[in-house]
């Protein structure tokens, strides 16, 4: 081997060693980097391990809050339904109270008017108006009992045919029986179903009573066309009329008679004074 060849081989070895050293350095660098990364991973794992318990706690607390809110929502829905039911009850009650109020107003108006006069004819007129305007009767009459003859005769009427009607004996027919027993009579069946009025078979017959003493009757034969049925307030009015109309008629009649007597006595006294 000559020196030129030996020199070339030495240069190749040195080049190889240089490449090898660079590779060694690079491998060291990679190992260092790897070490650093491993360290970072360990650090992150540690952090994750410490952070995990509070995250799950938050989740649990949120779940609990959600459960509570759902419960609250259910309770509110229940309360809402309850309030709605109560509201319906109040609405129904309002309608009932309104109807009751109207009934009481009618009764008040009727009784107030009945006792607003001591004039017999005016009392009769008021009773006619009540039966016509508040009850809604088209054909009806007021009959008074003559205690001497025991007969009931018409003293006022509305809507009925004008021919004179015979007096009814106490205890005879529906009207006579009502006056005898003092029990109100209501014909069975549809009150609006009236084709021909039968004066012997009235729709309603109310005794006019002062305590248990009957002084006459209110007899209804036919209702107005727009009045299809008798309502609760009508029965209340009948009941009120039975007592109040009787006292109104009785007291106004007594008052008229006493007025007449007073005038007669006064005239007599005046005559005496003149003599």
């Amino acid at each position, binding site marked *: 081997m000559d020196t030129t060849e030996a020199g070339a081989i030495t240069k190749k070895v040195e080049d190889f060693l240089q490449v090898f050293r660079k590779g060694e350095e690079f491998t060291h660098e990679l190992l260092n980097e790897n070490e650093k990364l491993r360290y970072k991973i360990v650090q992150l794992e540690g952090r994750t391990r410490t952070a995990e318990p509070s995250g799950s706690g938050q989740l649990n607390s949120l779940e609990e809050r959600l459960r509570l809110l759902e419960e609250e929502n259910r309770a509110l829905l229940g309360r809402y339904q309850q309030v709605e039911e109560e509201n319906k009850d109040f609405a129904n009650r309002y309608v009932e109270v309104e109807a009751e109020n109207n009934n009481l*107003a009618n009764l008040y108006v009727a009784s107030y*008017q009945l006792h*607003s006069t001591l004039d017999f004819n005016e009392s009769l007129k008021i009773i006619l108006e009540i039966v*016509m*305007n508040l009850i809604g009767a088209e054909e009806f009459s007021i009959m008074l009992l003559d205690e001497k003859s025991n007969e009931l005769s018409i003293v006022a009427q509305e809507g009925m045919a004008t021919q004179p009607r015979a007096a009814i004996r106490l205890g005879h027919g529906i009207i006579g029986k009502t006056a005898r027993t003092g029990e109100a009579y209501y014909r069975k069946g549809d009150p609006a179903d009236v084709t021909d009025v039968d004066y012997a078979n009235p729709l309603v017959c109310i005794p006019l009573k002062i305590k248990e003493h009957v002084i006459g009757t209110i007899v209804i034969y036919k209702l*107005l*066309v727009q*009045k299809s049925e008798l309502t609760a307030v009508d029965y209340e009015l009948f009941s009120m009329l039975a007592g109040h109309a009787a006292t109104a008629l009785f007291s106004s009649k007594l008052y008229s008679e006493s007025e007449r007597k007073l005038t007669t006595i006064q005239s007599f006294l005046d005559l005496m004074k003149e003599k």
Partner: protein
Amino acid sequence: MMKKVLIVDDSALIHQMYKMILMRYRCAIVAAQNGQIGLDKLAQHPDIDLVLLDINMPVMGGLEFIKKVKELGTYEHIPIVISSTEGKEEDTDRGIALGARGYVTKPVQPSEFHALIEALFAASR
């Protein structure tokens, strides 16, 4: 503002009944016993908001009252509600044709009456 209602009816019972029904509106009531008195009251109270009018009355009936109101022209804007005991359609039809804004039949049903009155009051606002 307080509403003013003129009631034209020959029955004291009806006057009192309307007063009771109208109590909730806190309105002032002007009373007349027939159409002629009703016209006089209209002249005295030109600010009347509503007239409740009976058909059958002595001296001057309800239909004649509406005719007179129409002739006068001054009170045509005031709504008139007619009431009829008989419930005869021809009476109410004639009243409506003459210019009445509504009608009630006796015995008055408060619920129907309130609905009508509230609608008329609302329209006049």
